[in-house]
């Protein structure tokens, strides 16, 4: 693969916004990787209380202030990023393979397979994603991070089916596919060895964009109390807790909120950069 050939990266780096996005994403990933070493109060992640220092406004000691039971919000935001990134990666590693496999089958095999698979996809797309995820979590036993991931994945795969289906449809009559067919290549070989590599640029772009949006949806669910449960530091939960003490203790909800914004923005900018670099439409 020649994705990272100098010329392509040159095109990517021409747009300052894409580079800013890449910097944001790298920065966030590094922060989460080294979270226990760089955060000032790693012990504030768990069930920690310090009522002497509760609801302190931002200062040099606690740059984002402290929450209603005296925990450092900056520390919890960094650890919250961990949860968010894990959520994004897990959701997409469930949703993408399902969506890709269905899209390839529907697009290449055609006929009844296409009809059935695409109707199922359409039906899932007819239910607004957040509403579908909400209902699934509502129906499951007790909200926790694992259920959130499952629910968001269930709502997310149809978009990949759509994407891969459209690409497959447009390239399945190309010469090299026919050549492979004439040589007697199996359907599996054609789908995964001939068609899939041609989907990679679009796929990679969409995955990057979606990492941000999955994090956004995940935080929306935890904002409603349907994500990781306390004391796990989750950005959405923190915003929700802080929203009840507005406007006096504004830092409690605003900083975690902006943290979500920053990471979504980062993935979005990188995704847009990739879109221009590969010249694809997702």
């Amino acid at each position, binding site marked *: 693969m020649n994705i990272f050939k100098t010329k392509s990266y040159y095109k990517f780096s021409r747009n300052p916004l894409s580079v800013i996005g890449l910097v944001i994403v790298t920065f966030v990933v590094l922060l989460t990787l080294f979270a226990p070493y760089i955060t000032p109060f790693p012990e504030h992640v768990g069930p920690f209380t310090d009522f002497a220092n509760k609801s302190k406004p931002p200062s040099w000691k606690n740059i984002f202030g402290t929450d209603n039971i005296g925990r450092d919000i900056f520390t919890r935001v960094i650890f919250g990023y961990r949860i968010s990134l894990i959520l994004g990666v897990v959701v997409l590693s469930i949703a993408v393979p399902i969506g890709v496999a269905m899209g390839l089958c529907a697009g290449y095999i055609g006929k009844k397979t296409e009809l059935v698979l695409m109707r199922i996809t359409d039906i899932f797309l007819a239910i607004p994603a957040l509403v579908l995820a909400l*209902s*699934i979590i509502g129906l499951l036993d007790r909200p926790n991070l694992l259920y959130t991931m499952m629910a968001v994945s269930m709502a997310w795969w149809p978009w990949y089916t759509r994407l891969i289906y459209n690409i497959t449809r447009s390239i399945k009559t190309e010469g090299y596919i026919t050549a492979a067919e004439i040589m007697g290549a199996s359907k599996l070989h054609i789908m995964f060895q001939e068609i899939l590599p041609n989907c990679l640029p679009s796929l990679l772009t969409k995955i990057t964009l979606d990492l941000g949006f999955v994090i956004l949806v995940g935080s929306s669910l935890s904002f409603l109390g349907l994500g990781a449960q306390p004391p796990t530091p989750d950005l959405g939960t923190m915003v929700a807790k802080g929203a009840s003490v507005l406007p006096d203790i*504004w830092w409690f909800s605003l900083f975690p909120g902006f943290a979500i914004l920053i990471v979504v923005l980062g993935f979005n900018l990188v995704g847009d950069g990739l879109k221009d670099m590969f010249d694809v439409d997702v």
Partner: protein
Amino acid sequence: MSATQYFLRRTFISIIVFFGASIVIFCLARLIPGDPARIALGPFATQEMVEQYRVALHLNESIFIQYKIFITNLFQGDLGISTYTKRPVLVDIISYFPATFELVLMSVTLMILIGMPLGILSGKYKDTFIDHIARIFSLLGVVTPSFLWAIILMLFFAFLIPIFPVAERMDEALDPPKIVTGLLLIDSLLEGNFKVFRDAFSHLILPGLAIAMPAIGNVARLTRTNLSDIYDKQYIEFARSYAFSEFKIATKYALKPASIPTVTIIGLDFALMLGNAFLVETVFVWPGMAKYGVEVILAKDLNGIVATALIITTFYLVINMVVDFIVLLLNPRITLKD
């Protein structure tokens, strides 16, 4: 294919998708691991209570019979009893839905009124200062969670500069108008009660804006791209050579074709906005469908959850049908083949 045939076909497809969605939602509610009756009643319910609940919801029948009962009841307007409010779910929905409907209509209006001009500005003055500002604004709209918009808007326009109210649909001190449509704006106008109208309107602005923000960004981006494509077309050049005013070119020749993809995206963004309503209604204590939805989800109310998901999906389907017909009106040469 004539427009009528298109209409019938489109309706038919929507009905099939509706049935599909009802099957998906229904199966989710019944096939998810764990006993739904036990989950709904909680760990402290006695075995008899669970058994009673199972009988009441026909959980002991086979899934096909359960679905048949469900769909038959649905068409008789019976969505079951909510274990959370202890009322028929349909009654709940009739009382909560108008609030959400009014809010989402407000959001769509704001989305068009802000998104399109923003897109037009940046499409017309491409790569200038105005364009950059508009693009940054629309990018921020897309990447900011709507609950954060709700909180920011609330902080600025309700607490810092108190020009808009914080919560609920109208001031408690005012007498609510008689319920005709359930939409406060229309009901108050029917009574000629302008005080309530103004109050309800000011209550709608902030939550409406918070829901619309992500969609505004999408609309602006799309309008920008389309408009700049259309300004490159020859017929615009041609209109210029006839010395038509720039205003006439913009409104008569450029905007109409540029608005077609925008109208399409409004249909798609509806899903986004309905989802966001769940978050924004929670922040603004809005007594709507979404708030009801969150409450029944937290209360594990099986009938309530299924009904909420189904009603919102139906709403989304209907809106998308309407959008498709509007697109047809805007673009008569649309290929009606498939």
